[in-house]
């Protein structure tokens, strides 16, 4: 199949064929990271701008490495640097960037829909590196790649996503992606972290973590944002971790060969007990980093084919 997209804004828009193509392309890119010279000339002369309105060293670095390994010129603009001028609107920034004639703009923004706004304004390809609580497509793709590698397939697996579903873009993108690929997705978290009508997305929702983990092939723990406590969505970290932390006890409910994932960074002892997080036989958390670069290389490669 041909990849005809201008932008990657969310997993919701992607077909199964497109997801498969991205994953297969990413698998080919994994090998490059094992070479002595971890660089290919594919995107020589192309420019990738990483426009980060939200601090994220991990995702930004991953995109930067992906661009560099493909020999693209990568430019980082983040809100912490003076390049994103205070008070300058996204539209102003977009016009400035467009004048620099980049090939791809990677955007991370705290406002849902910001990448869509940018995509409607500029002719360049846009990759959504996370927008508010909406989507984080590259994270979901690398998660799918990790699952596929460990389990040999995605279809038919039971995947439990646990935590603050309401505020999680990782959860949304994974619900779309994993469901499309034939997995059975369940979610669990306190009712205050469960967005309205979540089951209309095709998942089953449970208030108790044990009900979701039972028989799961994959358990994906979401990061708890400590500042949410102020919004009263959980009374205390202590209480949350007592009932929603993945530990040696409740993990027994899952399949024996369960794999544990976390988009990182982990609050050890809050979302996952340290012994599980650090156990390479169940936890694939570090493994996910390598795949992140490969997935992002694949997207850069697929989006920069030509100009006709």
């Amino acid at each position, binding site marked *: 199949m*041909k*990849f005809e997209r201008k932008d990657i804004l969310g997993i919701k828009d992607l077909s199964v064929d497109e997801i498969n*193509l991205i994953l*297969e*392309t990413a*698998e*080919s*890119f994994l*090998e*490059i990271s094992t*070479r*002595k*010279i971890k*660089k*290919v*000339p*594919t995107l020589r*002369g*192309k420019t990738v701008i990483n426009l980060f309105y939200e601090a994220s060293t991990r995702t930004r670095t991953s995109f930067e490495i992906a661009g560099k390994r*493909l020999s693209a010129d990568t430019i980082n603009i983040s809100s912490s640097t003076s390049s994103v001028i205070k008070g300058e609107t996204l539209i102003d920034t977009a016009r400035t960037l467009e004048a620099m004639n980049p090939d791809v703009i990677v955007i991370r923004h705290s406002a849902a829909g910001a990448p869509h706004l940018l995509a409607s304004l500029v002719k360049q390809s846009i990759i959504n590196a996370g927008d508010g609580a909406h989507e984080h497509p590259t994270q979901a793709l690398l998660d799918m790649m990790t699952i596929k590698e460990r389990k040999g397939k995605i279809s038919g697996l039971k995947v439990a996503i646990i935590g603050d579903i309401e505020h999680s873009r990782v959860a949304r993108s994974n619900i779309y992606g994993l469901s499309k690929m034939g997995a059975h997705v369940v979610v669990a978290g306190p009712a205050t972290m469960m967005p309205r009508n979540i089951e209309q997305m095709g998942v089953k929702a449970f208030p108790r973590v044990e009900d979701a983990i039972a028989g799961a092939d994959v358990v994906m723990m979401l990061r708890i944002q400590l500042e949410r406590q102020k919004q009263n969505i959980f009374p205390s970290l202590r209480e949350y971790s007592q009932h929603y932390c993945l530990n040696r006890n409740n993990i027994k409910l899952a399949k024996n060969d369960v794999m544990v994932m976390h988009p990182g960074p982990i609050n050890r002892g809050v979302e996952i007990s340290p012994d599980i997080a650090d156990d390479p036989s169940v936890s694939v958390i570090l493994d996910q980093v390598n795949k992140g670069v490969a997935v992002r290389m*694949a997207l850069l*490669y*697929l989006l*920069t*084919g*030509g*100009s*006709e």
Partner: protein
Amino acid sequence: MANNKSIKTVMDKDGIERCLTRIAYEILEKNKGMENLVLVGIRTGGVYLAERLQKKMSDIEHGKIPLGILDITLYRDDLSASNKKPRLGETKINFSLDNKVVILVDDVLFTGRTIRAAMDALIDFGRPRMIQLAVLIDRGHRELPIRADFVGKNLPSSLWEAVRVDLVEKNGVDEVVIEEGS
């Protein structure tokens, strides 16, 4: 449009086998044995030919030459000009190329651009002592100063013709055909 392409078979199964056997002998002769030799096949046709050469050389001498697979997509110089993104294949070279004599294998040598890309890629993997090129068909029309060290058959062709190498491993049949026009 009616399918009025004319197809002409220029080499059959036995022809291909004979060419490969000869090339295997020539490689061993030129390099005085198998020592330090490695084979790298260019996806996809070159890989099957390299596998056959590996087998033939094992039959002649004892031991097995390491075989690598190279996908040159990422090194192509026409990527940005084409709107189609070629499907990436896996590159698999599980051995060091340093100080090795690399026999690069492809099915058809044409403009030379594929070989240029392949050499760039190989050099990213290490520093071979020498790179030699083996091809089943050399059809001419070079655009770069590249020549093959081992050629199965020189096949002068016009630019409007397409030379296609079918191999059992991927097409179910061994043959070389010329397709005319489009």
